[in-house]
């Protein structure tokens, strides 16, 4: 069985790993933002203006 020496400071990312992680985070953020807009628009189209007037 392999033994590990745990670094008390945790994992230190290389500049390349940091850069790619930042780019992935930005991409995921943009996609999630676009999905919010998409689902909002589809909801309005499917339900019509009535979505803003809930029954009392």
């Amino acid at each position, binding site marked *: 069985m392999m033994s590990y020496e745990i670094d008390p400071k945790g*994992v230190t*990312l290389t500049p*390349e*790993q940091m850069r*790619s*992680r930042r*780019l*992935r985070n*930005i*991409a995921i953020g943009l996609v999630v933002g676009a999905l919010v807009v*998409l689902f909002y*628009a*589809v909801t*309005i*189209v*499917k339900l019509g203006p009535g979505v803003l007037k809930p029954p009392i």
Partner: protein
Amino acid sequence: MAISTAEPRDYLALVKPRVMQLVVITALAGILLAPHPVNFVIGLSSLLCIAVGAGASGALNMWYDADIDAVMRRTAKRPIPTGRVTRPEVLAFGIILSGFAVLTLYLVANALAAALLAFTIFFYVVIYTMWLKRATPQNIVIGGAAGALPPIVGYAAATGHVDVAPLVLFGLIFAWTPPHFWALALARTTDYGNAGVPMMPNVKGADHTRLEILIYSLILVAIGVLPTALGFASYVYGAFALVLGVEFVRRSILVFRVREGEAANKTAMSLFWFSIVYLYVLFAELLVERVIYVVGVLR
């Protein structure tokens, strides 16, 4: 476990953007063929779902075919063979995108469109990639059905049913696929041979492939003019289909006749590139006239 250095562009490469372009154009044609124009937001969202579903298929194809991709020149620079993304990452990416695309299409459009998209992904990944591709020289003939389905999915998303018009577009892409891929395979025989993929030229020989290319080209030209004959495309489209179709057959005859040396490769690649132009121009023309129709109806 290694920490990933994959960038967004690597994930973009996984969804095969070039194939996705063709899927978008053909699915859009299916959406615009609807007799009653669909709502813009619903149409656009449906198109997005179909495109993402196609991208997911591409990613799952790269996940399964990483071994083949690594030994072929055309595919050796893909994200898995170069080590930029791992296979489990690609598998997860493909499955999540597939599920998301199908479920969203169900919510945005209807159950039929979602089921057809799910079937398209299943057919491309399981039937074509996992089974046919490594088993038979008819791989791209039968597997071509997956690439031909987007117009049907698009039409179903817009109307809730399937009709003759999208089926004709299905037939057009289905008949286009063999001459398109076999022209490439003729020029890349060694590559496919090294990878152990039983493409038609490797199994039945180059001459037999040339004959089949010619036969499929003739079928393609006949299907190409059907939209005008059946009345869902104009005579302008018909003229384009006829002129480009004749050129397609002329180039197929050249491929059939020029069989030796570098000239043979050159003629095959020339047919391959022309086949792309053929399909893009026909669908672009169809899109233009359907957009004019939709604008006319909405006025």
